[in-house]
């Protein structure tokens, strides 16, 4: 099965790269080769396969394939940008492990198993917080990240187990279902570092290279969010219970993340914190989908998640490009960056277009639809304005980028934004390669950022059949034990996986 190949390849290369972590170059090389291989594996994945192991199934879908293709591409791009920036971390290995875990999470038909894998995937990320030679600072940030991941995982495991059985005789249903729903929604919020659970994520931005940030706070949590959406739509939404109080809590977290993260990103002085808070703001839109409690939110939410993953990765690559080119990430010191480095300017423009969007763009329409589904009246208008908050911090960065520098901040070398190829020296080819690479670090990072920016715009525009893939049903085996099971394309509530049975739904609805 093509999914198994992907998972085995991802974990095998991650394991070898981690085993070789004391040999920096070998580990990096294995990680990069692994990322190339998983890109090929993801592209070659058959989107309609299933396998049943025990009582649980693994099912591929067009959405899973697209998520993995995009995730692998951004992982590869971020790894290249990271090495160009001179970062010596386990980022390629962690990216591979995160991709493997995301593949399993999205393919599993049992939500209880899926949240277990999503939690394990989050734990791989702590390795990026550590510098190769050790360090108490990195370990402190890492254990705090592990704490957030495990607390979220424990909440999700308990909630999915609570709902994963016949609950027809359950008294006090709104309270019980509300608590389970709240636990899963807050688990997703904690994993994304949504406000007010953002402190660990903010500290993460201090200790982790910006190119690794999207792997930890976007790619891994996004797979958990997809599972949570499917679980909510299958187990909670069809019951038509009055969950007003808990839904208000989820809405409050979502709105606070959208609005306050936008403002926080505006006032930050370091670009990595701008990247971090921009991720939190976009994650708030995902939480809006959970707060909507409406199966209509399924397709736009998954469309948004695809654009979110790619756009924020491109933004992180741009931030890495800025640091390599200008040797600083302090925003007040970056006067004239867009003029001095046009490639980074192009990358930034692409990221801004993909991140904010305009009517007609799939991601923009998906976000607007989610706001409409989750909120009514003036609140919807206010939150819609809040989703445009990125305009403020993009605008600030652009104004500084087009202004004249008031201090002697220059690119690492004159004309660093352009490629510089020395005449090949066949007597010392390795030295020539090393020199060429070192001379083109800034240019390479900028080009990677621009390429990811193009990918972000195309994804946000709905290319690669993204919206169609997002509208497909979650993984579901038609008949347990039937290895020839196929995906149903009928969006009927009874067809959703993770649910606790139609009879239970009927008895609860009647009561």
């Amino acid at each position, binding site marked *: 099965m093509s999914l198994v190949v992907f998972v085995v390849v991802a974990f095998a290369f991650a394991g070898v790269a981690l085993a070789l972590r004391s040999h920096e170059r070998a580990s990096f090389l294995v990680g990069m080769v692994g990322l190339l291989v998983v890109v090929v594996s993801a592209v070659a994945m058959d989107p309609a396969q299933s396998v049943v192991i*025990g*009582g*649980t199934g693994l099912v591929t879908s067009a959405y899973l394939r697209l998520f993995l293709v995009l995730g692998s591409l951004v992982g590869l791009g971020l790894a290249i940008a990271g090495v160009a920036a*001179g*970062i*010596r971390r386990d980022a390629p290995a962690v990216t591979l492990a995160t991709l493997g875990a995301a593949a*399993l999470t999205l393919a599993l038909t*049992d939500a*209880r*198993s899926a949240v*277990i*894998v999503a*939690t*394990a995937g989050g*734990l*791989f990320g*702590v*390795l990026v917080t*550590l*510098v190769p030679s*050790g*360090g*108490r*600072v990195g*370990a*402190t*940030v*890492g*254990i705090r990240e*592990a*704490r957030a991941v*495990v607390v979220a*995982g*424990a*909440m999700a*495991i*308990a909630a*999915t*187990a*609570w709902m*994963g*059985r016949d*609950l*027809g*005789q*359950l008294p*006090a249903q709104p309270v*019980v279902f509300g608590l389970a729903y709240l636990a899963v929604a807050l688990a997703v919020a904690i994993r994304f570092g949504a406000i007010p659970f953002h402190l660990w994520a903010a*500290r993460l931005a*201090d*200790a*982790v*290279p910006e190119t690794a940030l999207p792997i930890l706070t976007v790619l891994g949590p996004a797979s958990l969010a997809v599972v949570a959406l499917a679980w909510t739509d299958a187990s909670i939404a069809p019951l038509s219970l009055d969950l007003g109080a808990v839904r208000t809590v989820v809405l409050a977290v979502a709105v606070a993340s959208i609005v306050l993260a936008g403002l926080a990103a505006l006032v930050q002085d370091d670009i*990595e914190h701008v990247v971090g808070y921009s991720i939190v703001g976009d994650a708030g839109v995902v939480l809006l989908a959970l707060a909507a409690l409406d199966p209509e939110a399924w397709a736009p939410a998954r469309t948004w998640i695809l654009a979110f993953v790619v756009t924020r990765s491109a933004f992180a690559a741009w931030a890495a490009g800025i*640091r*390599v080119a200008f*040797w*600083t*990430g302090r925003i007040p010191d970056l006067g004239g960056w867009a003029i001095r480095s046009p490639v980074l300017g192009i990358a930034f423009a692409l990221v801004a277009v993909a991140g904010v969007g305009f009517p007609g763009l799939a991601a923009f329409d998906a976000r607007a639809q989610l706001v409409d589904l989750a909120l009514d009246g003036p609140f919807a208008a206010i939150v819609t304005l809040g989703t445009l908050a990125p305009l403020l911090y993009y605008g600030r960065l652009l104004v500084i980028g087009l202004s004249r520098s008031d201090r002697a901040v220059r690119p*690492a070398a004159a004309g660093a934004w352009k490629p510089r190829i020395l005449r090949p020296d066949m007597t010392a080819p390795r030295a020539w390669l090393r020199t060429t690479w070192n001379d083109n670090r800034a240019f390479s990072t900028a080009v990677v950022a621009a390429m990811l920016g193009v990918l972000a715009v195309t994804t946000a525009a709905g290319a690669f059949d993204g919206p169609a893939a997002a509208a497909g049903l979650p993984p579901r085996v038609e008949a347990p034990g039937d290895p020839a099971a196929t995906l149903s394309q009928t969006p009927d509530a009874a067809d959703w996986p993770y649910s606790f049975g139609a009879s239970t739904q009927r008895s609860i609805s009647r009561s």
Partner: protein
Amino acid sequence: MNPALAGVALAVVLGAIFAGSARSARAAILGLIVTMVGAPLLADPVAHPFGLAARLVGAILAGYLLWVAGRGPDARTGGSHVGWPTDAFVAAAAAVVGYGSHGLGAPATGPALAQATGFALAALAVVPVVMGRDIMRIGIGLSLLLGGALLVRTGLGGTPDALEEVLTAGLMATLGGAVAIMAVAARNDGTAGYDLVSSSGRRSRRALDARPSERP
């Protein structure tokens, strides 16, 4: 009540109390290993042999990695601030609540003892996870919390299938490995053992190579 299950549950809770209250890192890890090895046995019917074997391997691997990180006579962890008797009473109270509320409002398909033990482990995990000031203690707390959630899952939903057991084993081993790596990293940096960097709530000191291009 199945006396064999009751014995296993008692051993799991005692191991957790020991893990949460011991000040010697290796003693605490030993208690955790007892807990992690015993937890998958708390199921009725017993898990599929393949899944059970995977859980045991995962538990032993996690314990071994932590054991390596706890090498040396000076490997100390915070231990319990209130003493093991208080921890034992907390665990007993939580176990009673878990046993009495078996199913949490609906018929459950797993044993009540699993839910009771899960509640006890989760209660014992609260203080290390929330108040822990060293990596080993927080890591042990996280393992207890995860173990508790998984036992509650078994108590509510019945014995997990083989694939879920394998995935759970992977999760426990990953957590053990991650905590071990961080514990070693902290211990190799200075003389403060497993202690966290002191923080006043402001930003942490930046890691040296997080922004390599900033270095002169």
